[in-house]
């Protein structure tokens, strides 16, 4: 990753164009990550911007002991978690955009309206998607992180351990617990065929 090293160095000197090039391979992934955390596109967009901005500002702290990708994921994860925490503390009415706030029905309708004409199976998937998003949204950060990073972003156990600054063993056990929790909830709702 010699090219990446050079870009990091240039970015540290304030070269914003170099920074743009540096983060280019990660943009879409981070957006997808943010979408999983925040549940809607607008927030995901904002969080993605925030994440890269934060990365630029704190680039000094990137020591190179992990890969740049891992580091970026870590920054983005923290940015999302911080924002979610902040919102939880706020005593305000949740917008319709936040999946937690609404009835399943509202969300499903919105999704269906956005997508093309569907068949039953796709509707079923959508319902599932919404439900998963909700359930994951309600999880504690530790469980939320591993589910999103593994099952949705498909990072390896090692990568996840790097992002969360923990051990593979911890990732294993957290993932196991998180998945089982989810599975039980799905069973309760009779979502399994």
């Amino acid at each position, binding site marked *: 990753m010699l090219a990446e090293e050079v870009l990091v160095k240039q970015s540290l000197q304030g070269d914003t164009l170099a920074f743009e090039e540096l983060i280019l391979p990660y943009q879409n992934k981070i*957006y997808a990550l943010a979408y999983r955390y925040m549940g809607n596109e607008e927030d995901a967009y904002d969080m993605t911007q925030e994440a890269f*901005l934060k990365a630029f500002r704190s680039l000094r702290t990137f020591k190179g002991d992990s890969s740049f990708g891992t580091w970026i994921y870590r920054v983005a994860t923290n940015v999302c978690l911080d924002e979610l925490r902040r919102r939880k503390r706020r005593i305000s009415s949740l917008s319709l955009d936040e999946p937690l706030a609404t009835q399943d029905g509202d969300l499903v309708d919105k999704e269906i309206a956005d997508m093309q004409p569907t068949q039953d199976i796709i509707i079923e998937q959508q319902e599932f998607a919404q439900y*998963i998003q909700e359930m994951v949204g309600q999880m504690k950060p530790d469980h939320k992180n591993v589910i999103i990073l593994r*099952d949705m972003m498909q990072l390896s156990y090692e990568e996840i351990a790097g992002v969360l600054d923990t051990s593979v063993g911890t990732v294993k056990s957290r993932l196991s617990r998180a998945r089982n929790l989810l599975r039980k909830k799905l069973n309760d709702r009779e979502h399994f065929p």
Partner: protein
Amino acid sequence: MKCEQIRELLSPYMDQMTDSHENNAIIAHLAACPDCREELKQLEAMRDMMGNLYTPQLPDTFTHDLRQRLNDDKMIILKPKYLKTPSKAGWIAAAVAVVALAAGIFSSNYLPVDNIIAYHEQQTQTTDKKTTMSVNDILDKIKVWDNQDKITDVETNEIPVQEQAPAIITPADSQPEEETLPVTVEPAPEVKIADIYSTRIKVDSTEEAVDKIIQIAQASQADYDVNVASSMVQALSAGSTKMVEIKADAEKVEGIIEELEPMGMIAAPMHDETVLTEEYARALQQIEIINEQIDIAKADNNTEELQKLNQEMNLWTARLAVIDKEISQATIRVYLIEEVKP
């Protein structure tokens, strides 16, 4: 192995993260246990579904938006030093004026950005609390002052400030590319401070009040400017709001404030000091750097670059002029709020 033990392993098993000993045990157990098989099926279904969730496409505006924010981030923003409470007892403090002046930096490849960032970092490290202003507010402010001062130097290449305070910083002539250490900035011998006072007056008619204030300003040979108040103040007040900004020599300030009082002042003015020394020094530094580059561009006969550099130069000299103006006089901001009749 028993079901409970197996079930704990199903998750890593699914991801091929179990060792061969565990694998053997799991496979053997699954062959004989339909419940655990079912559980594994469910886990796999769940995983597959989660791996296929809808993900939106990153909008095209992303790069542009990010670039904007990255460049905004390189703006150096003044930190207002906080407020001296007025000596007059019994008054209640009211709205506070927000002061911002910025030395902007172009996101140009021609400027030595390593300096800029290093300087910015130095600032970040030395201050605990920073107040950041919206960039637009800052630029608006500069626009206001630009118009007021009718800076004609904008047209030419002349730098009006060469006779001013001595150049404090000499950027190193040879800047090694790799250098990320902060530039040593020697503090200016003369501290530059801009005084800003702000107050609110409740009036029956903003029109009349504005006229009155203009009279007061003129009597003290002070400059004035009538603005519609910023949206922040608008939000705070129900009726229409106007703001008059008076620029006067420091000695005249007290007299002017005395004259404003009978108009219905809500509070004794808040006094805000802004230390502009660093900004002043920065502007000087930038001008020097741009000059060097102009020389190079002239030698190369690079007209395109010359044009860009001239533009940058104009902006910096304008900013320097703005800072000068701020320093030499005190500003009194009078927010006029019309009483809302029930």
